[in-house]
């Protein structure tokens, strides 16, 4: 069904279920309890995780399959966002035209940048993409301010034409919506001390990300995906097998650019203010972190990585000394203080340090990322004699 094998179909269904149930699953702790700050089931964070999952899955199509490391993919995020906001300004507050344009613009810019950058490989390719992205960022940030809003950011304003919408009443900007369903609409459910927020915007992001995940799954299982993996292995042989690697690379680049464009569009749809910062090279670096951390070249890895980083960014960063003291208050005072001193640099404002250390550990010891870590642990637990033989035979694209 859906062009997937049985295993993949089950896999996809599980992902779909997890996505649908995320508002519940991510809010396991009762409100007001000490653990409540680890709850992640609020719309903004869930939207972000879904959006970055799209971005990372798309990036993985390029980096994971072909091994070409682009350091400039954030540019497409920015382009997607600007496209989205312009649609919101000019056409309608309905996000659909914006999402379509964002995807197309992402693809179009990727075609342009990819066409030039793919003339080179290895680190030269990385530097070229980096140069293009920094160039886009610097232009969006300075000379293109009339189009991008520069440092101010670009958002819908009262005076915008919005030709498809009815004139706004009472001097407020209409809400961002999908055929009338406001992206802010949230149904709150109070259950056993837990407040679950079912947010329309999240479900738009979540379902779209499952759909994009499905497309990526198809792509991984397709002849095209196989060719891309072949490029990573041995481009030389591929050429002598009668295949022209450049259009394959370019297609992969454009597809991942479209994923990024869509992610950027969604970002602007969930919060209609697009800042140039999301194009900066550090943002490109972030998606690299996500993909590597999760497990490069795997299906679920980038999603895990995106979730992990966004979770840390939003939840980990809120743990301050006060909270730490509360945690360690069961210990004697001196031990409590010592523990707080040790942990302090790694949480709150210092969560980047944790991320950096973790990232290094993954690159050094776990090149397969968290997914590989999980598999290793799973293997340790099972320890069946036949596990070894099977492990060698599984395809890497699980």
């Amino acid at each position, binding site marked *: 069904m859906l062009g997937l094998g049985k295993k993949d179909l089950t896999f996809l269904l599980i992902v779909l279920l997890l996505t649908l149930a995320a508002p519940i699953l991510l809010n396991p702790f009762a409100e007001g309890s000490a653990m409540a700050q680890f709850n992640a089931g609020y719309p903004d964070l869930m939207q972000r995780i879904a959006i970055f999952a799209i971005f990372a899955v798309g990036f993985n199509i390029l980096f994971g399959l072909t091994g070409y490391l682009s350091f400039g993919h954030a540019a497409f995020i920015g382009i997607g966002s600007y496209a989205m906001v312009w649609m919101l300004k000019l056409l309608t507050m309905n996000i659909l035209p914006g999402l379509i344009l964002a995807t197309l613009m992402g693809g179009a810019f990727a075609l342009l940048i990819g066409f030039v950058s793919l003339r080179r490989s290895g680190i030269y390719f990385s530097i070229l993409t980096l140069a293009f992205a920094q160039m886009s960022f610097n232009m969006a940030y300075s000379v293109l301010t009339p189009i991008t809003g520069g440092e101010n950011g670009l958002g819908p304003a009262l005076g915008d034409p919005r030709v498809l919408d009815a004139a706004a009443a009472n001097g407020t900007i209409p809400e961002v919506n999908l055929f009338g369903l406001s992206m802010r609409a949230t149904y709150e459910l109070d259950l056993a001390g837990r407040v679950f927020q079912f947010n329309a915007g999240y479900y738009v992001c979540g379902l779209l990300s499952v759909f994009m995940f499905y497309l990526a799954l198809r792509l991984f299982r*397709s002849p095209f995906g*196989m060719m891309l993996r072949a490029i990573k292995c041995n481009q030389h042989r591929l*050429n002598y097998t009668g295949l022209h690697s450049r259009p394959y690379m370019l297609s992969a680049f454009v597809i991942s650019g479209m994923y990024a464009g869509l992610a950027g569009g969604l970002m602007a749809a969930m919060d209609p203010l697009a800042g140039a910062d999301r194009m900066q090279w550090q943002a490109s670096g972030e998606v690299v972190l996500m993909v590597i951390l999760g497990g490069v070249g795997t299906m679920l890895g980038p999603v895990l990585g995106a979730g992990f980083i966004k979770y840390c960014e939003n939840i980990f960063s809120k743990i301050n000394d006060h909270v730490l003291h509360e945690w360690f208050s069961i210990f004697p005072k001196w031990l409590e203080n010592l523990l707080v001193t040790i942990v302090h640099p790694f949480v709150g404002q210092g969560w980047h340090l944790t991320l950096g250390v973790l990232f290094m550990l993954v690159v050094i010891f776990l090149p397969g990322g968290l997914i590989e870590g999980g598999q290793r642990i799973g293997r340790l637990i099972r320890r069946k004699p036949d596990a070894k033989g099977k492990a*060698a035979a599984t395809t890497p694209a699980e």
Partner: protein
Amino acid sequence: MGILEVKGVNKRFGGLRALSDVNLSVQQNTCHAIIGPNGAGKSTLLNCLVGKLIPDTGSVLFDGQSVLGRKPHEINQMGISRVFQTPEIFAELTVLENVLIPCFAKRDGAYRLHAFETVAAERDINAQAEQMLRDVKMWEKRDMHAGSLSRGDKRRLEMAMCLSQRPKLLLLDEPTAGMARADTNNTIDLLKEIKGRGDITMVIIEHDMHVVFSLADRITVLAQGTPLVEDTPDNIKGHPKVKEAYLGEAAH
């Protein structure tokens, strides 16, 4: 008129004259071996045939069309497949995938955005690949990573990849180099079988005279970038010029 016509090819690297005035005509559905001492220009000649090098002068015609200046994938699409001196395979892919790729290339051409088809659903191609792997007796190893194969198996796999495209011309660059005797014999048998089907032309570069004499219909001896003699194996065996050319080389 042969299927492959090399006319007046010259190639210089700086001061070194790698090929001088090479003429070669390979007849359809024959096996043509090129032998010669080290540095005779065999590899240079092969690289000229597949577009990796462009000769300074001269022409290379395949099936009446020039191959000069074409990219490797275009040359392959014309019907020329190449086996390398050290096996070039997709090490991180499975054996089956290694054979599927050339099958796709043969059917779909140099590029096709078949991103939403499923490999498993392509019955014809899978059947083709299966047949090929059975032919080379590697079907049992279809799920192994190609990189974990033995050297002999890698060579066989590469051969299978080339043959699965049913090329008009197969270029073999020392196909048995570094192989154990048993493997060499297997390879010879395989090549003989392929040759026996009578629908393929082979050009083979080889040091191992055993291989050459078991397979070749005609042999060209290359020395210092020029063809010395071209004849049938029987005639080559006792040819004085050949002996002279090889005299410097103790190994042969």
